[in-house]
């Protein structure tokens, strides 16, 4: 596996991220608003843009012990949002317990679903479970055209996602204001995403006209040069050019709102990161404390670990 941090350091013409930003933003805010939990590397898909390199061949998952420590942390710190991701989070054997406990601990719970997993016999009951718990769903839909999505996530995944979106719409997701259904667009390669507002309008128009599907918002994200996407950039010799583009698109106004300043990201084994991208880059928080070390203590401001992949969060209108 390519060490992307080492690859970044070979790129002499891209200055270190720490030199680009105002020093006041090198540290976290003094409270934690978002608890992000990466609860498994298992996934039924192996998407080309996945920065945590999940797939059917992985088996790591968060234990009940780590989940309970996260829930205690969430209650103690009164976090505003619990953001559950993976892998396909549904594949964690403690998943329903986690969602139930999260909804008890916090008013805003997000589950990031790839949708297709919800057609598996073992998980067909989950859309109703989600609706009952009132969780917000953020689903990855790389494109509104089948060909463009299948290219990223595998043959037939678009049709499966559409089938699940129909089920979610019938339950009220994307239609009932209590049940939020958001989508995420990732570019299918080494280029930037379209402008969010215009792409959202296009998604809404096409998904409604072609499939009678409704949703709330579309987030267009920059692919972060890590994991499987990072490997692709190196292999296709696009890394230099992509990183230069990210650097040229640096927008200082986005730094104040970077997600790493307001969250912790907990990996399946209880390791703590400033964000999901640092998790993918294997850059744990400076103190290397685990989530257990955060329990029962006041939240402390910490220095954020940064490297050149952070330029993906500050490009254009910001992407974190």
């Amino acid at each position, binding site marked *: 596996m390519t060490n992307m941090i080492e690859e970044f350091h070979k790129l002499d013409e891209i200055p270190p991220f720490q030199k680009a930003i105002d020093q006041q933003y090198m540290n976290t805010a003094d409270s934690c608003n978002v608890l992000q939990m990466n609860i498994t590397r298992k996934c039924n898909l192996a998407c080309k843009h996945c920065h945590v390199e999940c797939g059917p061949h992985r088996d790591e998952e968060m234990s009940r012990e780590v989940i309970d420590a996260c829930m205690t942390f969430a209650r103690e710190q009164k976090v505003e949002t619990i953001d559950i991701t993976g892998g396909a989070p549904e594949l964690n054997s403690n998943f329903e317990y986690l969602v139930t406990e999260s909804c008890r601990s916090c008013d805003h719970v997000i589950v990031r679903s790839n949708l297709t997993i919800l057609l598996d016999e073992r998980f067909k009951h989950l859309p109703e479970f989600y609706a009952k718990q009132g969780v917000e769903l953020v689903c990855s839909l790389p494109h509104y*055209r089948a060909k463009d999505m299948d290219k990223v996530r595998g043959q037939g995944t678009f049709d499966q996602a559409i089938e699940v979106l129909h089920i979610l719409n019938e339950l009220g997701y994307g239609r009932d204001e209590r049940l939020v259904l958001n989508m995420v667009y990732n570019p299918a390669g080494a*280029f930037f*995403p*379209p402008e969010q507002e215009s792409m959202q309008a*296009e998604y809404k128009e096409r998904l409604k006209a072609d499939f009678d599907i409704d949703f709330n918002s579309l987030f267009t994200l920059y692919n972060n040069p890590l994991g499987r996407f990072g490997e692709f950039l190196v292999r296709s010799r696009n890394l230099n050019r992509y990183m230069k583009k990210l650097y040229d698109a640096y927008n200082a106004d986005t730094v104040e709102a970077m997600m790493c300043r307001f969250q912790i990201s907990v990996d399946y084994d209880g390791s703590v990161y400033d964000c999901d991208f640092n998790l993918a880059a294997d850059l744990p928080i400076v103190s290397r404390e685990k989530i257990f070390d955060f329990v029962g203590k006041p939240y402390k401001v910490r220095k954020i670990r940064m490297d050149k992949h952070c330029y993906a969060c500050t490009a254009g209108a910001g992407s974190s």
Partner: protein
Amino acid sequence: MDTYYNPEDLAKFPTITEESPELGAKFFEWYGAVFAEGELTAREKSLIALAVAHAVQCPYCIDAYTNDLLEKGVSAEQMMEAVHVAAAIRGGASLVHSVQMKNVIKNLEF
């Protein structure tokens, strides 16, 4: 210099102002205005640019506008249709001139 076309040279486009600052600045100002949203959308203008880039066979422009169109959410199929428009005009321009050939023949033959 190993090759006339180097992808890295595209980024050096702004250096054309070095020898002629006033004209260069005017060109870039005009160029920016041409591609702004107007009666045509920025996406439509980029598709035209891609087609013209193929007609004039400019590798820099093909690279720039393919990237630009991907970032505007345009598919490979849509881009290829635009290239076919350019090819049809190029091919049609050759073929329509055969009327001149026919005129010459008509004038010369019994």
